[in-house]
């Protein structure tokens, strides 16, 4: 007897259902999307036992007449598209006509619906695809879909459902992914009769995002709005200091639908690169508006992945939108010293046993950035954990929009002349001054930033808004890094030829990569030639390196290239090497600086992109605002 046989119709349907319906959260997603497509102004979701027992989605949309109701539960029945052309210009959430049929195949499904014109509604009950009941029923205009006992007839799947709290968390996430994109619609979510979220309609994106992430983070969000080449990128991103340790705080919506896309993820990472530590993940809420013809969303049953016609365009536009904003924003983390009266949260970052006065000044007593970040993060977390029970957050006034460019950078342009003057000043210090120099009348000096070096490590500078505490090494490293990077973008780095070539012993692997990557090495200013079987001769080195660092630098470069487990792309490799060179060339933590050097360094801060973080992502400066100082000294 043959071992291959055609599957029964029922089995096929269950398999197909499994692609769309994996868990209660998928039911919630499909049903909310249907409600949106029905033109609802309010959507309520109610789940019980994490959705394992019940998922009910009620909307006030257009509803369905009796005949439609019967058709709706058949596979590939939809009102959303009818011709093949529609498939390539999809403006509705669902379109494959799978949702209700799939759900009906694996649960006890009850739908009640009434159109605005009808005097009464209709009800249909489907169990394992069999219509068990169809009758008139009293109900409000709109549709209510009830899904009970999901997978009751597919034990293999039911077995794989997680506990109620995990499934509920998945539902929350799905709910948020849709509700965030539709602030005009009122949403609420209840679990076991308790409200998880209750968001009113007619909100702005900012308000909706603010409800979701809490007022503390909401106040710091940076607005993005960018439109070029048929693509609009808008939304809100959190400053780098608000980064998270996991990537699930990245909400990207394409034409109102949540997607996960590696091109966009990469662009976001790229935009934040150097602004935060590499192991952290930025928080973003990005909305992409694009002509539906430029993207294929029919790639995956859950539509979470899409295929771009021009993925480079998407990548470059997202990157440009964020970068442009970051360059214009001041990203220096503001220190909010905690009020002595404020109860100390039990977060790991706080040592509650410390005297209040001490604890209130985290930056002075412990300059590590993690700690400062901890202050912000634990605040946000506190809010989020409270959110579950509280039901919605405080409404956020529109006035918060004004705060988003708080202390916005004045722009680099005005500083060009000042920079030039300073560099003249610097360079003439290096050599004995000539009499002629005195005749040069410098342009009027820029508003003076008064700064003081403390402990040969930090610079304390006066600013218009308060004081800035700068890590001298981190800032100088950043300054050097940016200059080197610009230099590299123009071609190759300055390279000093050596009179006496340095010889370095290398492994066969290193010897090989050296030859393969000769061009990269040249761009860095290294000229290396084989010297015998196991050595190389270094004939030229980046001019910026100190003598004593040459051998170590060459070794690091070759190690990096020979590391087969972790082959960097040329761009990443060059960035890494620039970071390393900048670090070696910068003033060290602990180097005494002259007052002129202090002044010059602080002035350069203004001219440098991303000067708020060193290339490794540590912050270069912390800020105390006058308002904060006044608060601490009880002047207000």
């Amino acid at each position, binding site marked *: 007897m043959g071992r291959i046989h055609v599957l029964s119709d029922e089995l096929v349907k269950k398999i197909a259902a499994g692609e769309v319906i994996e868990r209660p959260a998928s039911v919630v997603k499909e049903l909310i999307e249907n409600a949106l497509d029905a033109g609802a102004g309010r959507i309520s979701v109610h789940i019980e036992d994490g959705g394992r027992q019940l998922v009910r989605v009620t909307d006030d949309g257009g509803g369905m007449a009796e005949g439609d109701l019967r058709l709706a539960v058949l596979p590939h029945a939809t009102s959303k598209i009818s011709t093949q052309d529609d498939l390539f210009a999809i403006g509705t959430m669902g379109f494959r006509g799978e949702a209700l049929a799939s759900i009906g195949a694996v649960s006890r499904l009850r739908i009640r619906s009434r159109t605005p014109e009808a005097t009464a509604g209709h009800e249909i009950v489907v169990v394992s695809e069999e219509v068990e009941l169809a009758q008139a029923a009293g109900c409000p205009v709109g549709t209510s879909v009830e899904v009970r006992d999901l997978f009751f007839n597919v034990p293999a799947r039911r077995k794989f459902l997680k506990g109620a709290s995990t499934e509920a968390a998945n539902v929350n996430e799905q709910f948020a992914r849709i509700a965030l994109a539709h602030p005009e619609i009122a949403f609420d979510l209840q679990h076991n009769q308790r409200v998880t979220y209750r968001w009113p309609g007619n909100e702005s994106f900012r308000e909706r995002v603010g409800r979701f992430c809490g007022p503390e983070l909401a106040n710091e969000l940076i607005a993005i709005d960018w439109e070029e080449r048929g693509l609009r990128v808008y939304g809100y991103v959190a400053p780098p200091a608000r980064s998270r340790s996991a990537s699930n705080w990245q909400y990207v919506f394409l034409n109102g639908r949540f997607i996960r896309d590696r091109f966009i993820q990469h662009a976001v990472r790229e935009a934040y690169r150097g602004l935060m530590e590499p192991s952290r993940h930025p928080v973003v809420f990005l909305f992409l508006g694009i002509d539906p013809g430029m993207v294929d969303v029919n790639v995956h049953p859950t539509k979470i992945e899409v295929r771009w016609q021009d993925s480079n365009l998407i990548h470059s536009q997202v990157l440009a939108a964020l970068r442009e904003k970051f360059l214009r924003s001041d990203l220096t983390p503001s220190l909010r010293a905690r009020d002595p009266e404020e109860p100390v949260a039990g977060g790991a970052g706080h040592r509650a046993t410390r005297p209040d006065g001490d604890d209130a000044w985290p930056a002075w007593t412990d300059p590590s950035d993690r700690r400062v970040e901890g202050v912000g993060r634990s605040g946000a977390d506190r809010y989020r954990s409270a959110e579950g029970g509280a039901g919605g957050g405080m409404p956020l006034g529109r006035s918060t929009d004004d705060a988003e460019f708080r202390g916005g950078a004045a722009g680099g342009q005005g500083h060009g002349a000042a920079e030039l003057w300073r560099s003249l000043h610097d360079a003439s210090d290096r050599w004995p001054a000539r009499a002629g120099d005195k005749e040069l009348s410098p342009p009027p000096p820029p508003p003076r930033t008064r700064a003081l070096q403390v402990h040969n490590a930090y610079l304390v500078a006066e600013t218009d808004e308060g004081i800035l505490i700068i890590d001298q090494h981190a800032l100088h490293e950043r300054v050097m890094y940016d200059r080197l990077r*610009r230099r590299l973008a123009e071609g190759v780095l300055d390279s000093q030829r050596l009179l006496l070539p340095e010889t370095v012993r290398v492994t066969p692997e290193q010897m090989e990569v050296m030859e393969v990557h000769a061009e990269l090495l040249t761009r860095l200013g290294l000229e290396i030639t084989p010297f015998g079987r196991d050595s190389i001769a270094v004939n030229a080195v980046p001019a910026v390196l100190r003598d004593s660092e040459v051998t170590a630098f060459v070794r690091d470069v070759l190690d990096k290239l020979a590391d087969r487990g972790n082959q960097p792309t040329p761009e990443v490799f060059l960035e890494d090497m620039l970071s390393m060179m900048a670090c070696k060339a910068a003033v060290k933590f602990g180097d005494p600086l002259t007052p002129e050097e202090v002044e010059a360094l602080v002035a350069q801060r203004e001219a440098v992109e991303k000067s708020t973080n060193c290339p490794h992502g540590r912050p270069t400066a912390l800020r105390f605002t006058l308002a904060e100082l006044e608060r601490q000294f009880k002047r207000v």
Partner: protein
Amino acid sequence: MKLRVNRHELAEGLAAVSGVTTSRTPKPILQCVLMEAQGDCCVLKATDLEMSVSFTVTQVEVEEKGDILVSADKLSQIVRESGDETLLLETGEGLCHVRGQDSHFQIYQQDTREFPPVPSGGGPADFELETGELRRLVGWTAFAAARETSRYAINGVLWELQKGHLSLTATDGRRLSHAEGKPKTTTDRSLRAIIPIKALNLFMRIVGEAEGDVGISVTENENQVVLRSSRATVTSALVEGQFPNYRDVIPTDSDKQADLNTAEFLSAIRRAALLTNDESRSVKLSFQGDELVLTGRAPEEGEAVVRMLAAFQGEPLDIGFNPVFLVDALKVVESDRVTLELKASNRPGILRCGPNMLYVVMPLNLS
């Protein structure tokens, strides 16, 4: 011990030896100066174990011979602050008494027997130089020596004496300076020694112009050099290790040559260098016909262009140099004119100042 000494003379002597006493040492005795009162003079000695200095103070009336060992720092301060013409120094009961007209200081003495032996450097010198010649030779070379240790022994100046001919060479791997001179008197010995920069600098600092000739001797078995003038003696361990074979790196195939006014060239480089910065510190020299154009460029700051006359022979050439390297050498040039010999933009240049002084400098690759 008891002596009366001219205060200015003593202050000068203490300043000379204090270059060796280090304040940061775990051995307090190394912070001390040893005063030995002999016949009609007093010799001050200090050491840091690698290097020792002794300096003879004249204008002394010795009433009673003997030694004192006291903190160099304290004694210097007392002598410097005093307003007296002469001071009386005397030992007694473990104390050193310093008496002026209106003052009396008592400083605790250290035990002179614990002071490390300072090499006397006695015996005839291997060769002698005029002070002026010494200044010329060391001035042209010492700046090019490496400040940091490397695989070569280049943190010192190589002295070579052969058949009555003396040459000094120093390099830091990027540039090399070389000067040749003639000793006033010499033995038949051939010598080759790397003298540490620190010892040379100290000796140059304390040798007075008027001192006439200086004697230099190298004791090879002890690996030591003695630099001696009429008043001061510096002894130091030599730098051990191999000095690179510098003759190989002095180019012999340069086919282009520029004859330049020293002061103009120095000024032009300094001005062009005003618009360079830490990451792009190259000044481009463009030679064409009788003109040299120097260009400095700091990417986000601006650009400098300086022109000067240059008697140039050869095909036009652009070459980049670290301006600091050129300025270092031009600063110590005493003649009015220098010549710069070149071959190609990726080959070393040679700056010559007369027949006996040359400076090889490696270019920067122009991007």
